């Protein structure tokens, strides 16, 4: 099993979720994060003082997947989150050793 972490632009969340649903993913966890990278932030101005925000709002998606779904998922996220502009984000794949569904105590693939 793998643990996929994707960082995307906030307004792409809806599309990415739909894309993952389409390939049969039934669960995922979403957090609001701030990203620092090549994309440069917007300046804010308050009474003449400029604040350049280099931490930009991003959405992080975490999904545990069966190994054979990983390729598909990467592709689905990659397409749905793509704008071609700097700041589109990243997909990271981590190994996942175990998975448990709390409600049923199922483990492994059955728990995803």
């Amino acid at each position, binding site marked *: 099993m793998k643990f996929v972490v994707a960082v995307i632009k906030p307004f792409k969340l809806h599309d990415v979720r739909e894309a993952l649903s389409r390939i049969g993913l039934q669960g995922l966890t979403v957090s609001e994060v701030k990203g620092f990278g090549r994309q440069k932030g917007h300046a*804010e*101005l*308050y*009474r*003449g*003082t400029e*604040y350049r*925000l280099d931490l930009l709002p991003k959405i992080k998606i975490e999904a545990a997947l069966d190994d054979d779904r990983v390729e598909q998922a990467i592709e689905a996220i990659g397409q749905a989150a793509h704008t071609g502009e700097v700041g589109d984000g990243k997909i990271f794949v981590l190994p996942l050793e175990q998975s448990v569904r709390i409600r049923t105590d199922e483990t492994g693939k059955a728990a995803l």
Partner: protein
Amino acid sequence: MNERLFRAARLLAMCLPLCAPVAAAAAGEVDSGDTAWMLTATALVLLMTIPGLSLFYAGMVRSKNALSVMMQCFAITCLVSVLWAVYGYSLAFGDGGELQAILGSLEKSFLVGVDGIAPGGYRIPETVFIMFQLSFAVITPALIVGAFAERMKFSAMLWFVGLWLTLVYVPVAHWVWGGGWLGAFGVLDFAGGTVVHVNAGVAGLVTALVLGKRRGYPATPMMPHNMVFTLVGAGMLWVGWFGFNAGSALAADGIAGRAVLVTQLATAVAALVWMIVEWLDHGKPSALGIASGAVAGLVAITPASGYVGALGALVIGGSAALACFYAVTRAKPAFGYDDALDCFGVHGVGGIVGALAMGVFVVKSLGGVGLPDGVPIGWQVAKQVMGVAVTIIYDGLFTFLILKGIDGTIGLRVTDEQETAGLDIALHDERGYNL
């Protein structure tokens, strides 16, 4: 004899024939209409401080200090109310006898014998006059919170406000409004340009200098944490200011009507000018900009509101916006002091602009109510300069001494850890938000 009131009454009789029938009616009796308006005006000025000013300021600080500035505004309101009753009112507006030029007396301390009519020929109960003046005494030190926000000890703040009220606000109010020498000299200040705004602004500047900068200023971003609060607070200030300025007529008459109209105009123009200058300067107009402009306009028209006409309002509003804009966006960074929420940049500078410009626009040919008989315009401007200069020097000096005194005893500033943690949790064991 109360010079301020007398003067206002004199001007009125001279310049506003419309109001003559009103002024003629039943001297020495309480008038229900005037009293109704002054009760309302008092409520409006209280609305300015809490919730208005406290919200305006709370929105501009970081979220970890939001409660601390609100708490300061609340505590100031309470402390000043009590001190005003105990001796403040009496020293400012009581009859000082031989020393009347300098200070009132203690005859009305603890509000003894105030069941009659207000002094100065006004047709409202003295209780209402006391309350209206109290609301001014409350908001003036509360404005200074903007200068020392996010770093002052709460206990030091209480001492500072108590001493400053006693040693600075009370005498200056007496000099200008209570029959003291500045009023007698002819300095005009309709609703508190010098007494309230220059006074608070200069005290703010000195406080900012003595306290020093906030940790990390200006490198660390210290953005307003909730601009909606700031805008709501600005709206409340604007609404409440009708009570501040039109209430200073101490009657529901044509002077009050004029005051409210020029207040609206000056504020609107100032807000638009700030908006436009920011638009040109930075490329976009901002909400904090338009609100700051509005407050600058409100401040500047304050000393002039009962005296000038539409033209004066437009010029005063516009020039105050320009002056405050450059004070806040250029002068402050250039000099590098940390007047956190621009108490000096808006109230000090705006108050000075208004107090001086008023000396010009009071004349009839510019739409004002006209100067007292025989006073040439240049002479009135000189008097205004005098009023402002005296306030700056006296206030600056005493504020400095008070602060140094406190610093040498209990200390002015919170520790670095407290400042980093935020004053809400460090000083009050509370946090603003638990979402």
